[in-house]
């Protein structure tokens, strides 16, 4: 069923115009690998719904089960328990060649003995699309990825970035209901990677196909995705928009994994204007919204770029901590400061280098760090 629908389906203009319901749904999916010494729980419990036309990222550290999750969607692995649905249909036990999704491999996995055009035409030939139609679609997709002039080349004659685009074209040309990309840019150098991120996003917008994007690069996930699932040790720690994940990390793991985050521990003293206050010596304080009651230990996060660094003691409506500058790193448009607070926690602070703000502090200076209460989040510690 799954394979036949794609053939005649035109490329959808709007993500929501196609089919009813979710493109991909994982319901209580788990995967355990049996090895010589026992079983490895690669994926413990994943529940996901990915909408049609969405750019969805699976983000997490190495070994957290991202590839395994993706391979279960593609059909290369069968879940130990749970159900995988594509366009609402249960595809458990359906072979990869009968699933209407295509994969872009991290290593590209191009066919080395075939030309670029033959690589791209492979899927269409298997689906017995008419020869004229194949030629037309291959030409069209190679134009889209800007490789029209490389059709006759062998993969080995292309640069890494070009091979990457062939891999993308080879999957896209089939107009699958979803494209699965497993760290597709990992092998590229930084500059090319950034260029390809923009390129991928453009292509995804143009074709409107659902993208499931696996990465361990949080910056990549934040800039490209509509929604992100942050995975750790086989479970999803948080699922939300990039802003939600960045601004309000749900767990300590997410806070630590997404960008640099400062973590401050303290004991709740009392409420001030809707915020709880953590008191420290010498008028230092942290204000945060939390359900924790007086006397309870909490963990508070604040992003480096939200902190203001100054010589004078800030007002009582701000979180404020005193510390000593340990390191100053000039980064061009910003300067990064490493500050050891009086409590001994290391804090990272990013300051924009506007003309009058440069040289805010030198190494060894005593400074005040301050930030607005709404920029802190309390995590269960």
């Amino acid at each position: 069923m799954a394979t036949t629908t794609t053939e005649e389906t035109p490329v959808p203009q709007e993500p929501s115009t196609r089919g009813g319901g979710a493109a991909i749904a994982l319901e209580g999916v788990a995967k355990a690998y049996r090895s010589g010494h026992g079983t490895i729980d690669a994926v413990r419990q994943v529940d996901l719904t990915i909408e049609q036309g969405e750019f969805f990222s699976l983000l997490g550290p190495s070994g957290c089960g991202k590839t395994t999750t993706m391979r279960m969607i593609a059909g290369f692995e069968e879940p130990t328990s749970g159900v995988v649905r594509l366009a609402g249909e249960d595809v458990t036990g359906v072979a990869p060649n009968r699933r209407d999704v295509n994969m872009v491999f991290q290593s590209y996995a191009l066919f080395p003995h075939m030309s670029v055009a033959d690589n791209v035409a492979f899927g269409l030939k298997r689906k017995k699309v008419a020869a004229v139609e194949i030629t037309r679609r291959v030409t069209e997709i190679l134009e889209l990825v800007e490789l029209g002039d490389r059709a006759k080349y062998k993969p080995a004659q292309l640069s890494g970035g070009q091979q990457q685009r062939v891999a993308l074209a080879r999957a896209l040309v089939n107009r699958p209901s979803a494209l699965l990309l497993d760290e597709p840019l990992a092998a590229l150098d930084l500059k090319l990677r950034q260029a390809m991120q923009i390129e991928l996003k453009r292509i995804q917008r143009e074709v409107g196909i659902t993208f499931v994007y696996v990465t361990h690069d949080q910056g990549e996930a934040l800039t490209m995705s509509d929604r992100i699932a942050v995975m750790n040790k086989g479970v999803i720690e948080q699922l939300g928009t990039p802003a939600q994940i960045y601004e309000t990390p749900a767990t300590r793991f997410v806070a630590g994994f997404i960008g640099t985050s400062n973590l401050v521990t303290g004991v709740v003293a009392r409420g001030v204007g809707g915020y709880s206050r953590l008191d420290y010596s010498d008028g230092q304080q942290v204000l945060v919204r939390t359900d924790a009651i007086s006397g309870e230990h909490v963990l508070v996060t604040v992003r480096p770029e939200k902190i203001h660094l100054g010589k004078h003691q800030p007002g009582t409506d701000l979180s404020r901590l005193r510390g000593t500058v340990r390191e100053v790193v000039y980064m061009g448009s910003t300067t990064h400061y490493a500050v050891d607070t009086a409590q001994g926690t290391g804090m990272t602070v990013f300051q924009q280098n506007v003309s009058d703000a440069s040289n805010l502090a030198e190494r060894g200076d005593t400074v005040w760090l301050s930030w607005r209460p709404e920029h802190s989040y309390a995590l269960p510690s």
Partner: protein
Amino acid sequence: MARERTTATPYLLAMPGWIWLAAFFVVPIIGMLWMSLMTGNIVTGFQPTFNFGVYPQVIATYWEQILRSLAYGLCATLLCIAIGYPLAFWIAFHGGRNKATYLLLLLLPFFVSQILRTISWKFLLADNGVILGTLKSAGLLPDGAHVLSTSTAVVFGLAYTFLPFMVLPIYAVLERVDHRIVEAAHDLYASRIQAFVRVVLPLSLPGLFAGVLLVFVPSSADYVNASVLGGTHNTMIGNIIQSQYLVNNAYPVASAITFVLMAILLVGIFSYAKALGTEQVMEVQAK
């Protein structure tokens, strides 16, 4: 100075190899070519007479054995592909962590001399031996059935002898085929058979090419199998060379046949390489 030394280094490193080839291949070949053009006998000695007539003479006398050798070699090669390719495929893709063990098992017979192995086949295939005897007494074969002294026995013997030379090179290329490439083919709607025909087989051609050479050349020139398992009607050109050289001491004739065989094999190999498009095959390798 330093620059010159670096350019010379590879040649110096290759020196032992070149010397070896020159001493044990080029010199004997030239010696044999020289010998093939002599006349005389072992008692009175051989004189160089530039007797080119020996070549048409040996071809006219032994064309039947030459053709038979090539035919047997071809059959043995095809048989080796039929048995060896699936074997190599299975070890490479389904061998798991026991690959090394399977390869060792494959090579194990090599630890016994070829003559002994062939003789044990003779014992196994004897008219009333373990296999035929049992089948006959079970009524599964007519009493007169025999395998020994037939071309079948020789071809099977050759295939058995040279099977590892087919399996190893095919295994070596299949081993290096990235499994994700095969997965990519499945992902792009190819069935198992299509993935094999379109992706795995083309990628394994260099190994198959090597295997065919490694089996066809020595089996066409083999004489052990024909002399042990074959009868008087199955003599191969190797048997003629052996008897002319070691029994009749007709060195010029033996040398001439050797050159004829070599020439045929070389022409065969080059046209085979041309037909298969080695360059393209090698290009795949280089990736």
